[in-house]
C-alpha cells in the first residue's frame, strides 16, 4: 500500500462523490452518495487493516506536501490509533446516516447529499490533519454543511438553531485560530525567524514536550482559546446550550452525525492538540475542567430527567455522556484517557443509534413529544426491542460498549480523586432514571390515543431502518465484549499523550476553589434572575422580529 495516498483517498473520496452528485441528475443522488460513502468506508477499513497496532502511538501512512511554503504550512496527513478509530467511526456513521436519509429527505436531495459528503470530508480531515493550519481549515469546513443541513432540512425553529450553532462554534474556533497562529509564531520566533515546522503538529509537539516548550503565558492563553473552541464543540457545561436546539431541529441523519462524530471533534482536539502542545497549561486548567465535566455529567442528566421531547432528552444525555470524555482526558491517567476514547467511540455508536431510533418514530408520527407516546411495545415490538437495547447500552449496561468506557474513565478519575469519581458515578442512577422513564413512556401501557389515531401509518421498523441500526448494534456488543480491539489500537496514542502532559500526582480539588466556583455560580444566578425580565423582553422581541423577517 506504499505510495498510494490512502489518507487523501479516504478524505477526498466523499468530495469526489459530492461532485458526482452535483453533476448527475437528482435521481442518482441517493445511490451515488451512498456509494461514495461506502467507498470511503472501505478505504478506511483498508487503513484499519494496514495499520500497525504495535506502533499505534506513531503517525502512519503520513502524506506531506508543501502548501504555503512561506509559512511552512503543509498539507500533511497522518493517522495514529486515536484518529484511526475516529476516522472509521466517521466513515461508518456517514454511510449509515446517508442510508437513513433516503426516506426522510425528499426535497433538494442533491444539495442534501452534497452537503453531507462535504461534511464527511471535513470531519475526516479534522481527524487526519497533522498541520495546525490544515486542521483549522477542516475544522471550519465542517461548519458550513452542518449549517445547511440543519437550516434547510431541519424542523420548525431550524434557523434559530442553526445560526446559534454556527455562531457559537465560530466564536470558539476563531479564537483557536488566533491561538494556532500565536503558537506558530512563538515557534518561529524561537527558531530564529524560521517558519519551517511552525504549523507542523509533530514538530510543534516535539518542541512543546522536549524541545523547550512554549512560554507560560502563551500556553495559558493558547490553551484557553483551544479550550473554548473544543469545549463548545464537545460541548461542556456551560457552553452546551446550542446542542439541544441543534439536535431538536436537525433532520435525523444530521442529529446522528452531530452526536456521533461532531461532538468528538472537540474531544479529539483536546487530546491531540490542547494537552500535547500546552502540557503545563493543561495541568493548570485540569482541575477547573474536571469540575466543569462533573457539573456537565450531573447537570446534563438532571436536566434530561424533565425533557418533554425525545431528541432533547437524548441531547442532554449527550452532554452528560460527553462529560465522561472530558473528565477521563483531564485526570491524566491511562485508564481515564482510554476510557475517554472508548467513550467517544461508544457514545458515537449508541447516541447515533438513539437518534436514528427517534427518527424512526418521528418518521411515522411527526412528533417527538414523549407525553404523546405510549404502548408501543405491543404495536411495534421489534422497534421497541431495538430501542430498549440501545437505551440500556446508553445507560451503561455492562457487557455493552458504553460500560467499559465509562468505567475506565471513572477508574482513572477515582485514582485522581475519589470524590470526583463518586460524583460522576452517581450519574449511573440518573442515567437509568431518565432513560428508563423515556423508555417506559414510549413502550409500556396501552397504546396512546395519539398513536392509535395514526392507524396503519404506525408500522414497525422497516428492514432498511434495521439495516442502518444493525452495524451499530453489532459494534456495541462487540466493543462491549472485546474492548481490547479498540484498546490495543489506542494504547500507543494514550501512552504518548500522557507522556507529553505527564500524569502528575493526584490533585485534591481545593475546597476554596469549589467554594469560589459555587459562589460565582450563585452570583451568576442572582444577576441573571435580576435581569431576567429585561432579557426575556429582548428575546421575545427578537423572536417576534425573526418571525416577522
Amino acid at each position, binding site marked *: 500500500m506504499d505510495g498510494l495516498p490512502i489518507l487523501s483517498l479516504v478524505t477526498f473520496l466523499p468530495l469526489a462523490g459530492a461532485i458526482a452528485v452535483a453533476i448527475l441528475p437528482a435521481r442518482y443522488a441517493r445511490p451515488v452518495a451512498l456509494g461514495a460513502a461506502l467507498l470511503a468506508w472501505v478505504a478506511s477499513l483498508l487503513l484499519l487493516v494496514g495499520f500497525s497496532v504495535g506502533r499505534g502511538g506513531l503517525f502512519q501512512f503520513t502524506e506531506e506536501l508543501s502548501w*504555503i511554503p512561506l509559512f511552512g504550512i503543509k498539507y500533511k496527513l497522518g493517522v495514529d490509533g486515536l484518529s484511526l478509530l475516529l476516522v472509521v467511526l466517521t466513515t461508518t456513521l456517514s454511510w449509515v446516516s446517508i442510508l437513513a436519509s433516503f426516506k426522510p429527505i425528499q426535497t433538494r436531495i442533491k444539495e442534501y447529499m452534497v452537503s453531507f459528503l462535504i461534511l464527511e470530508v471535513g470531519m475526516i480531515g479534522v481527524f487526519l490533519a497533522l498541520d495546525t493550519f490544515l486542521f483549522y481549515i477542516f475544522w471550519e469546513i465542517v461548519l*458550513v454543511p452542518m449549517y445547511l443541513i440543519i*437550516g434547510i432540512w431541519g424542523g420548525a425553529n431550524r434557523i434559530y438553531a442553526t445560526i446559534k450553532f454556527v455562531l457559537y462554534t465560530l466564536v470558539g474556533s476563531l479564537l483557536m*485560530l488566533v491561538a494556532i*497562529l*500565536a503558537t506558530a509564531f512563538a515557534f518561529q520566533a524561537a527558531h530564529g525567524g524560521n517558519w519551517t515546522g511552525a504549523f507542523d503538529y509533530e514538530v510543534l509537539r516535539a518542541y512543546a514536550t522536549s524541545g523547550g516548550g512554549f512560554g507560560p503565558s502563551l500556553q495559558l492563553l493558547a490553551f484557553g482559546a483551544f479550550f473554548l473552541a473544543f469545549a463548545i464543540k464537545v460541548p461542556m457545561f456551560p457552553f452546551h446550550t446550542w446542542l439541544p436546539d441543534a439536535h431538536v431541529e436537525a433532520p435525523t441523519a444530521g442529529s446522528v452525525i452531530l452526536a456521533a462524530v461532531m461532538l468528538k471533534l472537540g474531544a479529539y482536539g483536546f487530546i491531540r492538540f490542547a494537552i500535547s502542545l500546552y502540557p503545563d497549561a493543561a495541568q493548570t486548567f485540569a482541575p477547573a475542567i474536571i469540575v466543569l465535566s462533573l457539573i456537565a455529567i450531573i447537570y446534563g442528566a438532571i436536566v434530561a430527567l424533565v425533557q418533554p421531547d425525545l431528541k432533547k432528552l437524548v441531547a442532554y444525555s449527550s452532554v452528560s455522556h460527553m462529560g465522561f470524555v472530558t473528565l477521563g482526558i483531564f485526570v491524566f491517567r491511562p485508564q481515564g484517557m482510554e476510557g475517554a476514547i472508548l467513550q467517544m467511540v461508544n457514545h458515537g455508536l449508541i447516541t447515533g443509534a438513539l437518534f436514528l431510533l427517534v427518527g424512526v418514530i418521528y418518521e411515522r408520527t411527526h412528533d417527538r413529544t414523549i407525553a404523546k407516546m405510549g404502548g408501543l411495545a405491543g404495536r411495534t415490538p421489534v422497534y421497541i426491542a431495538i430501542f430498549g437495547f440501545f437505551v440500556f447500552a446508553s445507560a451503561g449496561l455492562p457487557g455493552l460498549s458504553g460500560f467499559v468506557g465509562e468505567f475506565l474513565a471513572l477508574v482513572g478519575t477515582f485514582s485522581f480523586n475519589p470524590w470526583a469519581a463518586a460524583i460522576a458515578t452517581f450519574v449511573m442512577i440518573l442515567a437509568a432514571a431518565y432513560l428508563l422513564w423515556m423508555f417506559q413512556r414510549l413502550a409500556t401501557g396501552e397504546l396512546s390515543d395519539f398513536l392509535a389515531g395514526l392507524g396503519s401509518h404506525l408500522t414497525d421498523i422497516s428492514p432498511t431502518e434495521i439495516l442502518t441500526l444493525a452495524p451499530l448494534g453489532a459494534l456495541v456488543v462487540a466493543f462491549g465484549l472485546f474492548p481490547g480491539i479498540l484498546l490495543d489500537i489506542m494504547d500507543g496514542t494514550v501512552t504518548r499523550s500522557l507522556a507529553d502532559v505527564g500524569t502528575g500526582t493526584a490533585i485534591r480539588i481545593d475546597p476554596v476553589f469549589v467554594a469560589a466556583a459555587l459562589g460565582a455560580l450563585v452570583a451568576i444566578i442572582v444577576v441573571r434572575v435580576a435581569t431576567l425580565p429585561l432579557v426575556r423582553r429582548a428575546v421575545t422581541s427578537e423572536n417576534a422580529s425573526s418571525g416577522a*423577517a
Partner: protein
Amino acid sequence: MTFGDLVTIAPFAAAILVAAGIIVADIVAPGKRGPVLVVALVGLAIVGLLTIVTGSTAATAFGGAYKVDDLTTFLDIIFIGIVALTILFGPDYLTPRGLPLAEFAAVLVFAMTGAMLLAASADLLVLFIGLELMVLPGYLLAGYHKSDGYSTEGAIKYFLLGSFSSAIFLFGLSFVWGLTGTTRIAEVADHLTTLTAGGGLSAGLALGLAFMTTGVAFKIAAVPFHYWTPDAYQGSPTPVTGYLSVGPKVGAFALILRLFVEALGPLKADWLAVIVVLAVLTMTLGNLVALTQTNVKRMLAYSSIAHTGYMLMGLAAFAAGRIEGLEGLLYYGAAYSVMNLGAFAVIAALQKRAGVTSNLDTFAGLGRREPLLGILMTLFLLSLTGIPPTAGFFAKAYVILAAVQASQDGAGVMGLLAVIAVLNAAAAAFYYLRVVVFMFMREPASEQPALRHGRLLWSGLLVATILTVALGLIPGPLLEIVGAAARAIG
C-alpha cells in the same frame, strides 16, 4: 519630462487614453455597447500588461514625483482588476434601466487613473490630486442613476461629506508641508525624522496629523467618519456600489501606505494608538449595526466598514513593528476586492429586473430559483465571513497573525485587538449567514421566473469565484507578491 519618464508612467498614461478612447468610441458609435466594451476591456488589458512590464523594475519619474515599485504594481493590478470586473458586471444592471455604458466606463477608468496615481505618487501634491481624481468620479458614479432618488441622494451625501473631508485632509496636509518644507514623500519622511528627533510632535504637526488622519479615515470609512458609507452604498447603482466598496477603499489604503507608512512613517509611534482605537471602533460598530440591517446592500456597506477595521488591524500591526501587518493588509485588500465584488455582482444580477430591491426578501428562494447564483453568493458570503478555504479566511488569518506577532513583540494591546477582531468575525457570521438563510431556507413571497444573465456577468463571476477560492487554497503566489510589495515601503 524625458522618455524614461514616459516609459515609467506608461500604464497611467495608457489608462487615461483608455478613458478618452471610451468617450471617442461613444461619439463614433453613440449608444452602442460593443465598441465601448471592446475599447474598455482591451484597453484595460493593455494597461495591465504595461503595468506588469514596466512594474518589473523600480523607477521614478518627474523628478521624483512619480514612483514605480512593487507596491505600485501590485495596487495597480488590483485597481485594474476591480474596474474590469465592474465593467463586466455593469451592463446587466445598467441596460434595463436605460443608463448608458460609455460614461459609466469612462468615469470608472478615470477613477482608476486616480487610484493608480495615488499608488504611484511620491509627492504629496500628486497624492492629493490622485485622491481627488479617484473620488470625484466616485461621486458621479454614485449618482449615476440620476432619475433615481436614492442614487442622487447617496451621491450628494457622498459628495458633500467627501468634499468636507477633502478640505480637512488638505488643511492637515498644508500644515505638514509647511513644517517639512517639501512635498516629496521621501524628503518629508527625512525631515520628520529630524523634526521629531528632539522629542515628540510639535503642536502644528499634531494638528496636521489629526486633520490628515480624519480625512483619510473618512476615505476608508473608518468609524466615526463612516457615516456616508451606508447611504452612498445603498443608494448607488449596484455595480457602482460594488466598485465603491472596493476601489476607493483600496485606493484610500494606497493613500495610507504612501502617506502614513512612507511619509509619516517616522511618526508611527504616534499614530499607532489612534489606528488601534479606530480599528476597534470600526470593526465593532460596523458589525454591530450590520446585524440589524434588512437591506443587503446596506448590510454589506456596514460589513465593508467592518472589513476596514480588520485592514486597519494590519496597519496597526505594521506600526507596532511587524511588516507582516502590511502584507496582511495588502492580501486583505486583494481578497476583499474579489469577494465583495462577487457578492455585489450577484446582487446586481438579481436586480437585472428593474424595480427589484436589494432587501433580504429578494433573496428568499434564490437557492431554488437560481441555484448557481445562490451557491456563488454563499461562497462569497462565506469568504466574507472568513470561513476556509476561501480568500477571506486567509486574509483574516494573515492580519490576525500580524497582530499576534506584534503582541508577542510586546505590544500587548495588539493581542486584545486580535481577540476583538475574531469576536467580531464571529458576530459577523450572523448577518452574512442570514442572507444564506433567506436564499436557501425561506420560501419567496411570490414565485418569480429565473432571470437570464449575460455572458459578461458570468465571466466576471467566474473570475471572482476562481480568485476567491484560489486565494484561499493556494495563497503562496500572492504571498510572494504582497511580500515584495510590502518590502517596497516597509
